[in-house]
């Protein structure tokens, strides 16, 4: 595999690091194309990130040279596939600083990981009258599985509120923790607002109350260094496709002790040690939770994506994206028609906004004509939209390959939107 070149620490006088970003952009074939005759400005990274050729090539190479099933063949190809598959498990473990490979379970994505915990841990531990606590800024995927669980068990879903900046009200959260709270499900970073939650405090308060904590890291691991042991959370989930990897693959991290105590999520091949019609003995961790042939190519691609992120350097990514966030924020703040939603002190590179008198969908269509891809809608966070009293927002979410020039293009296109509707 070719090694990605890192963002050079030297910055240009204007505070950007454009020349190094230009080299990174070379790794992403899709960024070269024209959309409606204009250069693609891809600002929809919170929905999914683009893939560097290192990831694409790893998948092509798997299918061209190594394709085989894992964990069962005695032949060389199967051995190679298994080695690549398990090597990725180890890179994931190092990437999020977990203690043991057995704590890393491959799933389809963050959504499936949450559903796994709700179905397996939740069904085994949540009882009638218990409470599951979420926050007001959760993605639907960290609300609905808990609602389903609560409905099934006669448990209660409670919601910790946020303030008008989109910051969690920590005292309110602490007040909602009680003897019946058995699980806290909280996002590390809000997908709609970019808010970074104070996880250390959240986890510590929950543990003091005897609740386990699941963290939705789908919008976090691509932006910042994550250490699940330092956070001390019990479960941590993320998706491959939001960290420059393929779609259809994701990760559940679970504390070994908890995973051991949980019943399997799905039954089938690979998750068993032995099967008779009378009795099945389940496989050891993590295979107990990986029934059926997994997305092997997806896992290989995820491994390449993590290698790519680490070769660029997660700290450099954080600082580049923070620079873009501040630059983009100041541009949008300079336009009186624009209202930014989500102004938390700690934020990732997400700019959620509305344009006065103009529906986000119309904004999105006009920006698209300018080659600019943003997300418009409720971002699978309808309660967040309700909180701010809007049906939808426009969202520009920035990644390691975005530039200040692209934010200037966004601003110019927004002026065009305002002109069309004036």
């Amino acid at each position, binding site marked *: 595999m070719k090694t990605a070149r890192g963002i050079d620490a030297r910055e240009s006088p204007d505070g950007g690091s454009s020349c190094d970003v230009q080299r990174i952009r070379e790794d992403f074939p899709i960024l070269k194309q024209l959309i*409606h005759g204009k250069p693609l400005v891809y600002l929809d990274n919170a929905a999914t990130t683009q893939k560097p050729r290192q990831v694409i090539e790893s998948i092509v190479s798997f299918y061209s040279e190594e394709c085989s099933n894992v964990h069962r063949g005695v032949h060389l190809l199967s051995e190679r596939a298994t080695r690549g598959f398990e090597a990725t498990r180890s890179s994931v473990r190092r990437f999020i600083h977990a203690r043991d490979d057995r704590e890393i379970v491959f799933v389809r994505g963050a959504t499936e990981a949450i559903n796994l915990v709700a179905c397996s841990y939740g069904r085994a531990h949540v009882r009638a009258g218990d409470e599951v606590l979420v926050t007001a800024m959760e993605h639907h995927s960290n609300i609905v599985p808990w609602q389903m669980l609560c409905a099934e068990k006669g448990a209660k879903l409670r919601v910790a509120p946020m303030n008008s900046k989109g910051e969690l009200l920590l005292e309110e959260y602490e007040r909602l923790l009680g003897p019946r709270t058995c699980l806290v499900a909280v996002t590390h970073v809000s997908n709609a607002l970019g808010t970074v939650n104070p996880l250390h405090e959240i986890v510590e308060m929950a543990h003091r109350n005897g609740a386990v904590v699941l963290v939705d890291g789908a919008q976090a691991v691509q932006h910042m260094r994550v250490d699940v042991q330092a956070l001390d959370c019990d479960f941590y989930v993320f998706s491959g496709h939001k960290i420059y990897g393929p779609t259809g693959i994701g990760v559940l991290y679970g504390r070994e002790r908890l995973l051991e105590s949980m019943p399997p999520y799905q039954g089938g091949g690979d998750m068993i040690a032995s099967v008779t019609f009378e009795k099945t003995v389940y496989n050891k961790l993590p295979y107990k939770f990986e029934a059926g042939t997994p997305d092997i190519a997806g896992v290989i691609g995820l491994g390449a994506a993590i290698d790519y992120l680490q070769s660029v350097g997660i700290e450099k990514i954080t600082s580049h994206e923070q620079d873009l966030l501040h630059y983009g924020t100041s541009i949008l703040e300079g336009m009186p028609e624009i209202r930014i939603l989500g102004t938390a002190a700690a934020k990732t590179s997400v700019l959620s906004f509305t344009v006065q008198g*103009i*529906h*986000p*969908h*119309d904004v999105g*269509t*006009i920006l698209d*004509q300018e080659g600019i891809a943003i997300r*418009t*809608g*409720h971002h699978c966070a*309808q309660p967040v*939209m309700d909180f701010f009293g809007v*049906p*939808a927002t426009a969202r520009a979410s920035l990644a390691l390959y975005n530039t200040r020039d692209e934010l200037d293009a966004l601003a110019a296109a927004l002026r*065009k939107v305002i002109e*069309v*509707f004036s």
Partner: protein
Amino acid sequence: MSDLRELYQEVILDHQRRPRNFHRLEDANRQAEGFNPLCGDRIHLYLRIEDGVVKDVGFEGSGCAISTASASMMTESLKGKTEAQAEELFEKFHDLVMGRQQADPAGLGKLAVFSGLREYPVRVKCATLAWHTLRAALQGSLETVATE
């Protein structure tokens, strides 16, 4: 910009800024709710039908320029139409925005400005929300119509 003007024609922007019949109808005898879960657009449509003829029509809700203008212009074109003619108008409008061969803008009057939508397939649902809600109201359906 010329492409954009094809979609956001002046008449559409005018109806978006000043939607017609944008009010609740106190004496409505048919009504329906429409919802587009993709973008959160909502419409509540009111009809007063006497002897099979649309006597009055009004709507409330929030949505993008395309959905608001479509609803506004729909209400204008419905007044005085029989239920059968309203159904027929639905079909014609649907054919037009879907870019179907048999589309006949002639019978649509001002509504023909929506022909530009052919180039914007993801926005077709914005324009048809009000119309699907109309069909539900005509059929006396109490369920909220969803475009998804």
